[in-house]
């Protein structure tokens, strides 16, 4: 027994190191002196310096862009859940014609490269007068995350036994009431997981965001040049800045992501 436990712990630790080590390397790159970035062999414990990071932070307008990313993610989540939960319920509870077609097509829309749609989309939003605003980006992101939100909410809602809904209705509540009072509380952890995915997908989405903004970019759009075309030290700084807020977010939401599915066994 104990051998197996030790084995399990060792496995858990190894896997954790596998996840964390590359992130440490990024941190080392972002907080090195510029010459440290280019030296070889690189040292795992570099000469720490905040020079690159402070130049990057000052020049880029990072805090405002981060705020915009948060707002965009917030709008996206609300919209996507409003649209996706009813759809997930329909697929989970009903058998109807077109169900498979809907599921197949909704997932495959994501397979088309967004970059090809840039001109029509930008024209759209320009004509509606909301170009270069958090609105345009949020509307686009909702379209991008909706398929996955539907996929996940279907799974979640299918996991809630229908007997409970029917039992509630036997006691006199309406269909909607049964949904709200019985299904939602049980599905909430799983739905929170779906919401978390939507937030992370929206936060990290860079191409649509950079197409749809000029003066008011989200964080990934702001640092896209730094990520793709700048010298290595700035690449690392930008990537690190992009990465850290997600750690905070995942920490806050971890219990709900963990609760995805069923939170306890009977």
């Amino acid at each position, binding site marked *: 027994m104990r051998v197996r*436990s030790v084995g399990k712990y060792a496995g*858990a630790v190894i*896997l954790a190191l*596998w996840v964390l080590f590359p*992130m440490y390397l990024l941190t080392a790159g972002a907080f090195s002196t510029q010459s440290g970035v280019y030296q*070889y*062999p*690189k*040292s*795992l414990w570099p000469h720490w310096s905040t020079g690159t990071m402070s130049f990057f932070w000052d020049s880029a307008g990072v805090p405002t862009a981060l705020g915009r990313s948060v707002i965009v993610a917030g709008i996206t989540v609300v919209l996507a859940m*409003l649209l996706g939960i*009813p759809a997930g319920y*329909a697929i989970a*509870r*009903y*058998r*109807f014609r077109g169900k498979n077609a*809907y599921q197949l097509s*909704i*997932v*495959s*829309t*994501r*397979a*088309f*490269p967004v*970059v*090809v*749609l840039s001109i*029509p989309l930008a024209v759209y939003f320009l004509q509606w007068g909301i170009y270069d605003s958090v609105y345009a980006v949020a509307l686009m992101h909702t*379209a991008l995350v*909706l398929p996955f939100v*539907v*996929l996940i909410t279907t*799974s979640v809602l*299918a*996991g*809630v*036994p*229908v007997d409970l809904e029917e039992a509630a209705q036997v006691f006199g509540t309406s269909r909607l009431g049964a949904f709200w009072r019985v299904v939602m509380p049980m599905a909430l952890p*799983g739905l929170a997981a779906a919401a978390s*995915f939507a937030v*992370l997908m929206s*936060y*990290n989405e860079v191409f649509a965001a950079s197409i749809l903004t000029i003066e008011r970019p989200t964080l990934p759009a702001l640092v896209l040049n730094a*990520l793709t075309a700048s010298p290595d030290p700035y690449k690392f700084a930008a*990537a690190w800045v*992009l*990465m850290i*807020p997600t750690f905070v*977010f*995942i920490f806050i939401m971890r*219990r709900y*992501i963990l609760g*995805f*599915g*069923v*939170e*306890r066994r*009977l």
Partner: protein
Amino acid sequence: MSGRTTASVPADLQPPRSSPVRRRRPGWAPYLLLAPSVVYLVVFFVVPLLQGLRLAFTGEDGAWGLATVHELLNDPGFWSSVWNTLIMLAIILPVQLVLALAMSLLVNSKLRGSGFWFYVYMLPLGISELTSGIIWYSIFTQQGWLNSVLQDLGIISHPYIWLSYQHQLLIIATIVVAEAWRSTSIIVIILVGGLQAIPREYSEAADVFYASPWQKLWHVTLPLLRPTLRTALILRTVLAFEVFATVIALAGSSLSVLATKANNAYTQFQEPHLAAAYGILIMLLSLLSTALFLVLLPVRTE
């Protein structure tokens, strides 16, 4: 997701049924519920998508025809990009499944601090493809971290060129590693959810028969996990067809997959027709593989 058994029903060894569907005619209800999402996607996605699709079936002069399809099939590197896409998929999926299973079994077991492990395993969820490309390029590049460590340990005497165009399989291996690192978390989440939904009774029943952990895994856990595995596979496959930032970061122009071909056609060569044609091909392959998973891993009812 499988349903729960209540205490009054004795545990039997059949796989759990999914929620029973309503027997009476559905009426308009499901369509009404689907309508908002359909309308939204039609407006924001399908209409521009149709414009994009039209590009694939018109030539440069705007006339309808298969000229672009012809151009696609004769594009230098077309067949190798198809081949590379499929190879990569064939390697990434099993690697990630095994890795994700290991992580999720560990999290699900009664290990102390499983919440902490779970948090750590979740962290790559927040990493975008671009960030991952930057990290792994800095690891695999000639004067990068990997060679630094290997040289410091004395394993190599001078830097090895991992990303050389002459070793395509090696580049594919680095891409698999990078992708396995970046995108396994979502599979772990789905699998953990599925694992937690399996009632304890099944595992306890297997214990009654003195099943070893491997036997339990193979004969009890995995079959019960089938619907979850299917969801995870579909999700991961569709996402895998889209992966291009990782490939561009590590391979550059050494090798291409369909997604990089599509992206390069548009951004490097400003050929929206060709890019749209590649896009349609990617969509079709995603649809095909999704349908394949639905057929090969059927899940009861619904």
